[in-house]
């Protein structure tokens, strides 16, 4: 393309063609979803095994690995992904703000739980319900924005497990590790690992 003058008709055709080209964009990648999904499933499995083997509740500190590792890896991976696509659309901007909100809400929820623990109340059970409520909501929103069914379905499954967990907590049903932790892992696999692989597969086909 050169710096030449055009007729009015050519101008209009050029605008239409450029707008179309921005739509033929890179779908994005599911690597961040996969990182969170595998990280959560791995840490959950590790905590479950250690609790079963040792009966020592100190292993619950391992849960913090999810926030620390994920919190460090996400901005690095996100920058890499932006650099790869070379463009940030309005939908990218909205979905990134939705996920930032999820991150901030999770940090605030953790601080509340720590505050409760310092006062002698155990509110840690909420940390199972909260990720299964806010993460699926964000994922469903992202799925609607980018028109990706696997995110909507995965998010819906996670949300159902989240609502069930919330009902258990309110109804004083004990979340026993032998049934709840496997359920938690399945929810994260459906919510992040499966959609992450589907998105990556679609991105590969698009390239």
């Amino acid at each position, binding site marked *: *393309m050169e710096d030449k003058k055009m007729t*009015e008709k050519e*101008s209009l055709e*050029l605008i239409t063609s450029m707008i179309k080209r*921005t739509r033929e964009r890179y779908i994005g990648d599911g690597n961040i979803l996969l990182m969170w999904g595998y990280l959560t499933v791995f840490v959950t499995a590790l905590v479950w095994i250690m609790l079963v083997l040792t009966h020592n509740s100190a292993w619950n500190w391992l849960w913090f690995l999810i926030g620390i590792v994920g919190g460090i890896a996400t901005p690095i991976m996100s920058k890499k992904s932006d650099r790869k696509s*070379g463009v*940030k659309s*309005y939908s990218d901007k909205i979905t990134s703000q939705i996920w930032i909100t999820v991150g901030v809400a999770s940090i605030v929820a953790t601080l509340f739980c720590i505050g409760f623990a310092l006062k002698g109340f155990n509110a840690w059970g909420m940390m199972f319900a909260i990720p299964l409520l806010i993460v699926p909501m964000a994922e469903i929103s992202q799925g609607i924005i980018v028109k990706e069914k696997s995110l909507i379905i995965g998010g819906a499954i996670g949300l159902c497990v989240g609502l069930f967990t919330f009902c258990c907590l309110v109804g004083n049903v004990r979340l026993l590790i032998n049934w709840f932790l496997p359920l938690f892992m399945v929810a994260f696999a459906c919510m992040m690992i499966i959609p992450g692989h589907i998105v990556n597969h679609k991105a590969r086909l698009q390239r």
Partner: protein
Amino acid sequence: MKELDPILHSQLRLAVMSILMSVDEADFVYLKEKTESTAGNLSVQLDKLSAAGYITVTKGFVGKKTRTTCKVTEEGRQAFEEYVETLKDYLNL
């Protein structure tokens, strides 16, 4: 009839503005690829758009490599919308 904005009424500058109107921001490599232009020509046209206040050009570093990011300004958005309206008048749309 109102005259078409000379800053926008040029093939490469109009192509760049059309792309930037559809996205939040785009980098130099992306613009070069989508407009199928040469780096030198694109750079000159980006400078002209920037001098007119239609876009902002931010130069930064990603690791050791430079990255130039372009974003349309409010003034650029208005100019583009006016340009399209004038174009419609010319074409009786």
